[in-house]
Structure formats: C-alpha cells, structure tokens
C-alpha cells in the first residue's frame, strides 16, 4: 500500500525532502513507517523521538495502523504564534 509522507521544518531540512511516498506492507503502523524513514534519512533519526505524528490531518499515536492512501505527517515540536 502507498502512504504519502509529509515532512516539516527541521525534519524536512535534515531529510532534504518535503513530500515522499512510502510503499508499506499491509498491517504497517506509524511506528513502522517512522523506522523506515529513519533508515532512509539517517539525519532525522535522532530527532524523530521528539516528533508527533498526524494521520490525515489529526494527531494520532504511533501504534495506529496505516492504510492505502493515508497522509502521514511528521510533526516536530510546534512553535507558531
């Protein structure tokens, strides 16, 4: 299944990419996708534990299951305002 990934701020800068698509096995969780991202972009590995995740625009837990067509965003600690 294909999951669209969005990276922002420091994570996007370190990975050098803002949008990508991951091809994941059925039953993959957000944690699984995060591990894959860490392997693909070693520069973000140490920062990922400080990030939250948003699935289809809503914060969710890393144990959540992904499905085909999902949009998964890595959310570094926010600093708006």
């Amino acid at each position: 299944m294909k999951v669209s990934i969005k990276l922002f701020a420091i994570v996007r800068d370190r990975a050098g990419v803002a949008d990508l698509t991951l091809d994941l096995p059925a039953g993959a969780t957000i944690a699984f996708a995060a591990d894959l991202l860490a392997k693909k972009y070693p520069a973000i590995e140490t920062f990922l534990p400080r990030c939250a995740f948003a699935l289809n625009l809503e914060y969710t837990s890393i144990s959540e299951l992904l499905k085909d067509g999902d949009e998964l965003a890595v959310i570094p600690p926010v600093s708006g305002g």
Partner: protein
Amino acid sequence: MSDRIEILSTPLSVYDAEQFVVDLQAGGICVFSGNTRAETSSDGRELVALDYEAYADMALRQLNELAGRARERWPILKLAILHRTGRVAVGEPSVVIAVSCGHRAEAFEACRFLIDELKRDVAIWKKEVWKSGDATWVH
C-alpha cells in the same frame, strides 16, 4: 457563527481583524497581536526576522476546531484568527487574534485561550533568521 480563520503569506492587518469582529451586540473586543521581537543571541547575533512554515491543511483544521472549543466556553459573537507564513520582520505581526463578546471578561479570556492553545498545538513552525545569515528552527 462568524469566524475568519486564515493562514496568509502576506502582511497581517490588526485593523482588518478588529473590524471583522465588530458587532452591535459586542460590549468588549479583545485583540492580540504577536510580533517578531528584536533579540540578540547569547553570542551577539542580531535577529532580523522569523520565517514561518505551516502544515496549512492541518493548521486550518486545528484552528477551526480551536474556535469551536472557545465558542463552547464563552459567548463569542465573532472571532478572527490570522497567522502568517514566510518571513516576518522584527516589529511585524505573525499572528493576530480578535474576539468580540457581550462583556469584556469573556473577550479577554477567549482571546488569551486562543493564543495559548494555538502556540501549544497548531502545526506551525518558526525559524530564527539572524543578521549573520544563519537560521535556526525553534522547536
């Protein structure tokens, strides 16, 4: 229910936000403007601007949900939440929030709630841009 909630790449107008919430039933209007503040880092570098980035789809959804929570707690007549993306120079607003209510206490409390929650939760990030040319994300 009348909300104006926008993420904009152009300069914010405190005036527009305030005028948007004017209402014949409003006894109190509270407006907050959050601006880039001049700053010097511990090693003597001068701040020239903040660069804002938003996950706009999510941030707008969050701000609308936030407005709904504020409306559940206070009798809000109208509200406006405007947030910048891109470069915001020292002295310029990055966020403007305006709330009108029948009475002042409600307007102050709702406005304060909105900016506090926005800063805590909404998918927006800023990068400090220094005169030296380097830039650092605030996380």
